[in-house]
């Protein structure tokens, strides 16, 4: 119980979307103060995704208000003060802040240790997004439409039609051939000027049983059967322990499609270990509660699934998730090496998680799969002094793959 209260308190509060036309004029000039530099916007986007996106959208309300035009609504100094320590602003009695605090269920926006420049860069990103709002929506929609249509036509409809057409043609040809053959036979039987040999051929009947009992046929069938069985066994043996596509049912029907897809929450926000630890970490309920202290109803299942988080906290009973990605004990894998040092995208191995309602194992996770990637991947040596010596040894970072610096050695993963 106390945990819940504390989590509630630490959840996030946001700037309002209320239109303050009164202050609009005087603040309008501020928009110019927000930088429009592409680099700054990119930096701002990164910060926004990591720190703000869990509670804020550009347009719609989430836990906190949408942030479109916020730089027009409020004074930049005010925004900076509020982001750094919202409670201080509220406690100072600022009417705007107090109203907003009340409107958003008194959810506290946790203080963030940003510099003024960082906050400006976030604003730059917000401004960039605000400016793009109408167009952006249209382009995305179109892209999705055409893309989907093309995919549909090429891979399912078109190919199926061709195949069906071919099959029908072939069946028709067989029917026609059989018909021709029987007409010819009938015609020949009526003829009387044939010699003995030709008559025998015409009188001959097709003997299926004899064919089936022939040595050659049995031999061929046996061979084919053995070959198929052998191939199947070998294939199956290779798949022992391979769980590609494994999508177990989880104790809570958590949807990555909603969280990572629809709300675009950064993977790193919940999987906190991914940059520093071997484990990416499954988030503990206190991370869930950052948002779910105020979002009590979900898109797909209403309160049913979300209430399981509350139950777990109330009953002080940890949630037993089912591991989707399992490596054998003798294989060592470290997320931070790949994500932090190597700058590998999560999706490279985990696939389009943002489209998965239930998470499934996207990749093979076999040693061959690891090794293939290590053979072809260039080492990310940029700005990393650790690799200087190796870059020198290879004459150029272009020639330096993971394999060439020992990435295929046994004891890199097995110890």
């Amino acid at each position, binding site marked *: 119980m106390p945990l819940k209260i504390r989590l509630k308190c630490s959840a996030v509060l946001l700037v309002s979307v209320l239109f303050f036309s009164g202050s609009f004029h005087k603040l309008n000039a501020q928009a110019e103060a927000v930088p429009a530099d592409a680099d700054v916007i990119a930096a701002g986007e990164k910060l926004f995704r990591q720190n703000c996106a869990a509670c804020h959208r550009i347009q719609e309300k989430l836990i906190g208000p949408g942030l479109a035009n916020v730089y027009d609504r409020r004074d930049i100094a005010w925004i900076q003060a509020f982001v750094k320590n919202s409670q201080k602003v509220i406690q100072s009695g600022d009417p705007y802040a107090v109203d907003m605090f009340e409107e958003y269920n008194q959810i506290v926006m946790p203080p963030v240790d940003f510099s003024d420049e960082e906050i400006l860069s976030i604003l730059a990103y917000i401004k960039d997004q605000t400016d793009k709002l109408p167009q952006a929506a249209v382009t995305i929609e179109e892209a999705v439409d055409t893309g989907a249509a093309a995919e549909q036509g090429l891979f399912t409809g078109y190919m199926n039609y061709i195949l069906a057409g071919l099959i029908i043609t072939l069946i028709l040809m067989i029917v026609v051939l059989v018909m021709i053959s029987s007409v010819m036979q009938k015609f020949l039987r009526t003829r009387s000027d044939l010699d003995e040999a030709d008559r025998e051929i015409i009188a001959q009947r097709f003997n299926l049983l004899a064919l089936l009992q022939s040595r050659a046929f049995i031999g061929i069938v046996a061979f084919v059967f053995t070959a198929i069985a052998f191939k199947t066994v070998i294939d199956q043996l290779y798949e022992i322990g391979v769980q590609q596509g494994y999508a177990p049912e989880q104790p809570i029907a958590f949807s990555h499609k909603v969280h990572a897809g629809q709300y675009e929450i950064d993977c790193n926000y919940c999987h906190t270990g991914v940059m520093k630890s071997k484990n990416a970490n499954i988030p503990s309920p206190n991370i869930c509660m950052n948002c779910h202290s105020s979002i009590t109803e979900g898109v797909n299942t209403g309160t049913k699934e979300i209430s399981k988080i509350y139950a777990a906290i109330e009953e002080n009973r940890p949630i037993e998730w089912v591991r989707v990605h*399992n490596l054998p004990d003798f294989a060592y894998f470290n997320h931070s090496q790949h994500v932090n040092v190597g700058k590998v995208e999560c999706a490279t191995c985990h696939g389009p998680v943002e489209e998965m309602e239930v998470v499934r194992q996207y990749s093979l996770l076999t040693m061959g799969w690891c090794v293939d990637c290590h053979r072809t991947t260039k080492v990310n040596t940029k700005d990393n*002094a650790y690799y200087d010596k190796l870059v020198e040894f290879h004459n150029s970072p272009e020639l330096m793959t993971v394999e060439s610096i020992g990435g295929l050695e046994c004891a890199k993963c*097995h110890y």
Partner: protein
Amino acid sequence: MNKIKKRYWKGIEEFTNDPEFVKHADKEFPEYLPVGNDEGGSSRRDFLKLMGFGVAAASLAACEAPVRKAIPYLNKPDTVDPGIPNYYASTYLQGGDYCSIVVKTREGRPIKIEGNKLSKVTMGGTSAEVQASVLTLYDKERLDGPRKEGNAISWDDLDKEITEQLVSVLSVGGQIRIITNTMLSPATLRIFEDFKEKYPGTNVVTYDPASSAGMLQANEANFGMRVLPSYDFSNAMTIVSLSADFLGTWISPTEFTKLYNKTRKINSKNNKMSRHYQFESNLSLTGANADYRSPVKPSDEGDVVIGLYNLIASKAGESTISGGKSDFRYLKKAANDLWSNKVKSLVVSGSNDPAVQTIVNGINSMLGNYGSTISFNRHANFRQGDDRAMNGFIDDVKGGKIDAVIFYNCNPVYNHPRGAELSEALKGARITVTTSDRMDETASSVTYVAPDHHFLESWNDAEPKKGYFSLSQPTISPLFNSRQAQESFMAWAGNEGNYFNYLKEFWRINMYKESAAFGFQYFWDKSLQDGIYESENVEENSEPPQNIDAQAAAATVAQNYKGDNGLELVLYYKVAIGDGTQANNPWLQEMPDTITKAVWDNYVTISQSDARELGITSELGFTNMVNLTIDGRTAKLPVIIQPGQAKGTLGLALGYGRTKAGKVADGVGFDATPWIKSLNDNAYYAVTSGVQLEVTGEMYQVAQTQTHETFMGRDNVLQEATLKEYQKNPSAGRWHPRITTWMNEEKSLTPGEVTLWKGHKYPDHHWGLMIDLNSCTGCSACTIACQAENNVPVVGREEVVNRREMHWIRIDRYYSSDASLDNLSGLEVASENPEITFQPLMCQHCNNAPCETVCPVAATTHSSEGLNMMTYNRCIGTRYCANNCPYKVRRFNWFKYHDNKQFDKNLSMNNDLGKMVLNPDVTVRSRGVMEKCTLCVQRIQAGKLAAKIEHRTTTDDDIDTACASACPADALVFGDMNNPESNISKMLKIKEYEGDGTIHKTMEEERAFTMLEDVGTRPNVTYLTKIRNKDREESNA
């Protein structure tokens, strides 16, 4: 080829070419078949059955992979991240033993202990017992809650009953005693004071199983201070030890090993080293490291010490004292050296007799060592036990004078010589309580057990030396329903609150005054983070006034030290088992004894000449058992014939024969505690008269690892020189093999230059390990550290007898004859008092590794960083690699040691609790695969990753192997030989040169050698020659 200067051997059986030894000498494995099969081989039917089962199992496995759960924290602490270790500074306290430590925890479980380098007392060193203590935490034999008469009881009821009875004792003015081993914790002492305030009839009685009461009494009489001084071995150029095992078990061995070795590290810049004399009966670890060792009988101890006193006195012009002899071997030489190194010398004695200690004080005083190598300014608190008080207490209990007894974490029923008496007498006391963590011998003799936490679950503080404080902090939530003993005392005294707050408040009042600048919280946090707080301004009082009456002491000595010319028994503590407190720890039970290399037993050690006279024979690993009778108590004991044992003496280790420690320790060895004698009312660890020994026809094999891996006659595995030789020629003792090919001049090539292999390129790192044979004392802390770090299994006594021990790092102990090579008859006799060399041996990570070339499945391969890698999941168990390894460092998993009831003593792998100690970064190996030292590749990878994340190159601080970081002597140095800034590169003086298109390395350090250089394996592990500070001519005398 240079002739080897010495003959080395590992055991008598090797020297005498015992058939058992010869049979096994050049075999890697003792038998051809892995398991003795009672049925005599498997039939075709068995094979088919197995096949069928195998296919079924495989198809089952294919159908459904087991569902594995991932359970995150409910509320993840900010500072704990799964997969990332957390380190907490803490303190190891066990009786009077102390070590400042750093505990590595993973996901909230302590899994490894490292030394705390910030401590000025232990200076980052550890011991085998400290390293192993993390496994004791997960011992299932610990009590899961309080007990009354062996039955479970709630804490509330326990407190209620105990308090009621204590109050009723108080109301009649009854006597209460708290019994404890040396109490280093000042806060706990204050809690005892609080308890006394509530119950005025309380007295605290302190005793130690390994008592130094005699020294305390002597110091009280001589200096007016009932304390042990600080010994600065690092400042002593001549060290004379009279049976003090200061590197193994005496007072503070980790600290002394650190200090002692500062005088033993020599290189071209500093080519001086201390000289160490040892006079003792048993061959101790310290004696094994001495430059000159002289075996003496315990009954001669008095003569030795008086003899030395008189030799020094006559040089100093002081009056001599009566008695003593000076004709003990090396005694005069020792006296001369002491005198010429006046002020920079040190004489220590392990005796518990105040008279002997008084004379030793007199010697040190004449040498001017007080204020130089011995200091009372920061005196030690290690051994405060008072034997007389303890004897008085036992008498009082017997006399019915004591109403209540509370034992604080001590086990006198087992480890006090009058334990049996005490156990009987306790029945007469109205209330008896102990805080033992298990139902041990004492807990079984008392009414109430209020189990204390393990030290890794506890808050505590310690003051090992005056002004040097340290803190313990919990590194895991209590595993059982135990309670911090201090809180029990607080509860019984009616004080509210918990010990943490009490401790913090105690520190606020007593320790916190000097650093007011940042406030108390800062001071506390800093002390807790560092694990230590060392007050700077201990008043530098000049050394205390001396009042040494050596003459009176000599008179008592003359009375007491008389033998009956029969055999004399010397009782001693082993480095691993100590007083037996941690006897239920299988890592310690299976740690080969530092000298005998025996495991899972104690035994009588006897000199060769005595064995010959008595007709004790040793054949095929079996030795006659003996019936030893003392005071009418007879025991049948195994025997080990021990070179270096003083003639006429027997040795027997204490700490064994536990009956109620748990399934690992119970019934292992024999309990010799009742044979501890009394001298001047103090415990006396020798029996000098009335020892009867009868040889039986029964033969017994003590499991010893000493000859399991032999060097097969290649004596150059060890290279040594004397100091004088070294000073003349820094590469003295080195063996430089040279070979000849048809195209080169005679003997112009080193073996490494002619090779079939192309060599390896090491573009990034080149890991290497350097081992200074001169520093290694053989203490075996590395063996246990490696076992903890690398999930090495315990195999048990039977399997050690079968030569299947699994340790990745072993310490080879070699005897070498002190006879000269010309003295052929001398060489034929295994020396009665041989020189000893210790050599740690692990995988040598050869550049041209013989194991790699013979593996049919490429399961062992070479890395681009110089490591010889072992891939368990690829290994099919042909064991070719082990057969081809000239160093014999590969270990085969003959059995599945985990989850196997037959190996239930392997606690770390056979129950849920024990498994918590496993290092999650290291695979637990299964049956049928080979394993060996990996040079802690998991630590290398972690260190590299840390550097990569921080975008920098690695340094020495990032990576250290478990063995090197555990070593109290800094004998092992690990590092990157490609990095010119690393310690190892500097110490080996590595130079690079180009040739044949690749970069070659040479080591310019003259003492450096690789093992079996002539074989051409080119290891990445390098040794430095052993240097003895010995005058060679005398060694032939």
